[in-house]
């Protein structure tokens, strides 16, 4: 009787285990192939070169990294991309966060029109980036010069076609449209703050700004940290919308790492000889971004505001 009961229990457990395995096996298999294998292959590819004549790949040592040095560093392209990528990052991630957190606080406090603002800020999520960029591009290209001419009588070039204002225009666009995404995230995080904390502070006579600084920011700091940490990797991946602005024909002086990587891969999607160098470049960026991310995480944890 006892043995029979135990056997039924084991049978039930086995059934549960079988169902558990059935649930997770496909997602795990996908993860192993499309994440683990891809990341390992990224490392392998970086140290290979492809022979078109024999149609085989062979070990290339540090050749791809030397090629990166010769093609990108020595020619000055790397410095330009680094400068541009950092400018985009500072404006969109760092300065964007400051503005977005203030806007979020305004919406969170249910100040006038906050619901309307919230709805409109969702717009960049729904509308494709290529659509917004195209409208923005034609607006600064045709409408702004026309407006300037009407107001001042001065003829100016389109802001995107003028080399002097081209990059500033792109950075402005990134900052302008980037706000929306961040604001929605922070508003959700602020919505999770216990209302009693804010009520208690109000009874103690806390001001609008002090509540923001001493209560709201520390309580949403984990969300802020996540955004900053994911933002570090974006130094190397952010295309700054350049592909939507100009396709493959964006001038070299405006390239960011993200744009360069995407365009090169797009151009060489059927040319396997170009893949190892691109893989090496990606690997290089990962090796810079990973310790930077962990360092930033440690710094934010140590010096960031405390909930206490």
């Amino acid at each position, binding site marked *: 009787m006892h043995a029979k009961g135990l056997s039924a229990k084991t049978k039930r457990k086995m*059934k549960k*285990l079988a169902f558990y395995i059935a649930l997770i096996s496909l997602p795990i298999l996908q993860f192993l192939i499309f994440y683990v294998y891809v*990341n390992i292959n990224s490392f392998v590819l970086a140290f290979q070169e492809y022979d078109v004549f024999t149609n085989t790949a062979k070990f290339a040592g540090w050749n791809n990294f030397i090629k990166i040095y010769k093609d990108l560093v020595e020619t000055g392209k790397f410095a330009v991309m680094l400068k541009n990528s950092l400018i985009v990052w500072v404006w969109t991630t760092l300065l964007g966060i400051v503005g977005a957190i203030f806007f979020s606080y305004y919406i969170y406090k249910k*100040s006038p029109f906050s619901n309307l*603002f919230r709805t409109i800020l969702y717009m960049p999520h729904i509308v494709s980036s290529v659509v917004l960029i195209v409208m923005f591009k034609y607006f600064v290209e045709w*409408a702004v010069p026309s407006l300037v001419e009407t107001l001042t009588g001065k003829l100016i070039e389109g802001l995107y076609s003028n080399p002097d204002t081209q990059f500033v225009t792109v950075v402005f666009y990134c900052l*302008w449209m980037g706000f929306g995404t961040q604001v929605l995230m922070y508003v959700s995080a602020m919505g999770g703050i216990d209302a009693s904390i804010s009520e208690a502070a109000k009874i103690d006579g806390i001001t609008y700004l002090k509540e923001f600084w001493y209560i709201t920011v520390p309580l949403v700091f984990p969300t802020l940290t996540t955004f900053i940490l994911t933002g570090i990797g974006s130094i190397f991946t952010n295309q700054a919308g350049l592909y939507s602005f100009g396709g493959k024909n964006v001038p070299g002086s405006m390239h960011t790492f993200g744009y360069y990587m995407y365009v090169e891969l797009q151009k060489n999607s059927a040319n396997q000889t170009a893949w190892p160098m691109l893989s090496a470049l*990606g690997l290089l960026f990962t090796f810079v971004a*990973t310790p930077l991310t962990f360092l930033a995480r440690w710094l934010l944890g140590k010096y960031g505001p405390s909930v206490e």
Partner: protein
Amino acid sequence: MNKKKRMNITEIILLTILTIYTISIVYLVFWGLLTSFKTQDDFLIQQNMFGLPEKWAWENYEAVFNRLYVQVVRDGVRYKITVGWQILYTLLYAGVGSLLAAFAPFLVAYACARFHFRFNAFLETLVYIVMIIPEIGTTTPMLALLYDLNLYDSILGAFCMKFSFVGIYFLIYRGILGGVSQSFSEAATIDGANELEIMVRINFPLVLNVFSTVVLIRFIGFWNDYQTPLLYMPTYPTLAYGIFNLTQMTTGDLNITPRKIAGCMILVVPITILFIMFKDCQHRRN
């Protein structure tokens, strides 16, 4: 007694900036909509940049619908992929892709919440680690992998990429399912329901609202995404891919600003309607 709260100076400054900001976004879309109905003559020659169209040029939309195509070469044969086909590919790519992208994290989160195996801890830690480590140079090896698996330039390849459980949605599902009482499931077990029935009939409806939100968010993302199809399935152009091609045109009768913007509107309108309908539906359900 005046119950109205007086605004402080910080609020006034923020209100001003937010007002300017939101007006600028709405105005840009409105300007785009007006421009899409102008003729090239009205827009560029007459310099009617801000006014209403002199004549509402519906033919801009007609031209994009009837004459926009993406030329692709599949197995050595040239094809002209028209807007109709682009919409079909989009519905397939975004529709199935969003379901897969929402379903994979649900499956693993459900497994972790329903069953208490040691492997759960490993899976949960794995998700956190993968989310922290920046993924930068994986597009090249992904392309190589798709070639190796014979999945390059196929929608199936894109589906396989989307079926990933790692990410924020796993954590969201895990949080919700972790809070669901097991008593419903236990009662169903006593009534003779098997694990699949418990998952589909009892637990899935509890997360249906969140699931549908995730599907919508992913659907919007895939609907608007032109870079993934361009890179991984170039001969199956989606509508976003077609519109991107249109915006980069330098020749032909579609190469005029109002028509390019009209193309953009064709991409925007369906997704905006879907979003409004979904919000309305959710609002009614709540």
